[in-house]
């Protein structure tokens, strides 16, 4: 590489470093290090895929919602998740990757989505547990991302966080309603909490000591807090909510630590986490097969809409269709 090009890149890098140091935002057409771009594409795409795959566990219950009110709420929530996926795909496309490519990477298993969506939803109480715990964990993760260093990502997160609060509250309200019901309903709530508690803690990712990309992501201002910090924040927020609800969190090690001013809690089963992430969770194959089927079944719609647009454009110009 000629010296002038190297010198030019050094100037661009310094300008990028200044933006990061001042906690300003990097915007799409700015120069950025290739690794910063790759990290963002990976993280935003994984986030987008999670929203899209995340429609399935709850979508499972739309036709069997116990009342019209619950059905309308659940429909709105699942529609929001589609919307969140689209905001995030739109943000990742500003980094130069195409939607088609992102879909291909998801369907071929080359890009991941959150491990939590590989667990099944066995009862309607799971809809409540997902809203309360899974969306609660997501909020913990996402609120700091509103200040992430990449502009389009931060703006997408602001929109998402505004909508996510409804998701968590409807879940908690659903569980409260069931807790006021029969013994059987209370048992369903406890069972849902027992199954979703540990996977929710795993949503924050591996422990800091085992999180290879974290340090660089923090230095670049992509992440603002470490996995363990956010996990602790989630536990501290959730324990009083569990007490108010009247459920037990399935962790014998969970207790208030006066000295630290935080709750102590047990270690999630990281072997299970790794197995689920690498494809061996209870529903991985089912989730991807469903997404693939939806993509294939929609192909004729995408093609027909383009064919129609082309014919209309031709008509407007008064030229006969080719």
């Amino acid at each position: 590489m000629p010296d002038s090009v190297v010198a030019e890149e050094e100037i661009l890098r310094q300008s990028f470093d200044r933006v990061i140091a001042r906690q300003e935002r990097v915007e799409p057409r700015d120069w950025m290090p290739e690794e910063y771009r790759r990290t963002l594409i990976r993280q935003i795409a994984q986030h987008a895929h999670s929203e899209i795959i995340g429609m399935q566990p709850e979508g499972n219950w739309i036709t069997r919602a116990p009342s019209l009110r619950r059905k309308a709420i659940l429909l709105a929530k699942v529609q929001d998740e589609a919307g969140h996926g689209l905001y995030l795909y739109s943000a990742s496309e500003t980094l130069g990757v195409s939607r088609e490519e992102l879909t291909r990477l998801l369907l071929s298993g080359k890009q991941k989505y959150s491990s939590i969506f590989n667990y099944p939803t066995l009862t309607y109480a799971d809809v409540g547990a997902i809203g309360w715990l899974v969306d609660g964990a997501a909020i913990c993760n996402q609120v700091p991302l509103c200040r992430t260093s990449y502009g389009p990502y931060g703006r997408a997160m602001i929109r998402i966080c505004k909508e996510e609060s409804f998701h968590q509250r409807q879940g908690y309200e659903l569980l409260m309603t069931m807790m006021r019901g029969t013994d059987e309903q209370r048992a369903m709530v406890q069972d849902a909490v027992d199954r979703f508690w540990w996977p929710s803690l795993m949503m924050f990712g591996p422990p800091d000591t085992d999180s290879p990309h974290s340090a660089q992501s923090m230095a670049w201002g992509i992440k603002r807090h470490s996995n363990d910090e956010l996990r602790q924040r989630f536990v501290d927020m959730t324990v009083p909510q569990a007490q108010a609800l009247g459920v037990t969190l399935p962790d014998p090690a969970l207790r208030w630590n006066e000295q630290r001013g935080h709750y102590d809690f047990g270690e999630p089963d990281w072997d299970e986490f790794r197995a689920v992430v690498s494809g061996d969770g209870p529903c991985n194959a089912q989730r991807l097969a469903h997404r693939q089927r939806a993509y294939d079944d929609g192909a004729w719609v995408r093609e027909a809409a383009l064919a129609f647009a082309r014919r209309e454009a031709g008509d407007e110009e008064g030229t006969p269709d080719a």
Partner: protein
Amino acid sequence: MPEIRGEWPLYEVFVRSKRGLNHVHVGSLHAPDDAMALRHARDVYTRRNEGVSIWVVRSSAITASSPDEKEPFFAPSGDKVYRHPTFYDIPRDVPHL
């Protein structure tokens, strides 16, 4: 003109949140044509009364200034401090100025 195969073209979406305010860029989406872009924009970006008016425009139709530091595109306004009211010293006892 779009090809039959391949992706729907990209549109940028601008929403006026209420009367009296400017349209503001909110994000982008893919759509086969202008009419569908408007419908998708309504569904994706205004599910909670966020808008009273939407503009969509093909991303390829936008001309943007270069973010490159080397191009001093905004330099002409940088050294004209006299364009700001604070440039002028006015005695404190002169009212309404």
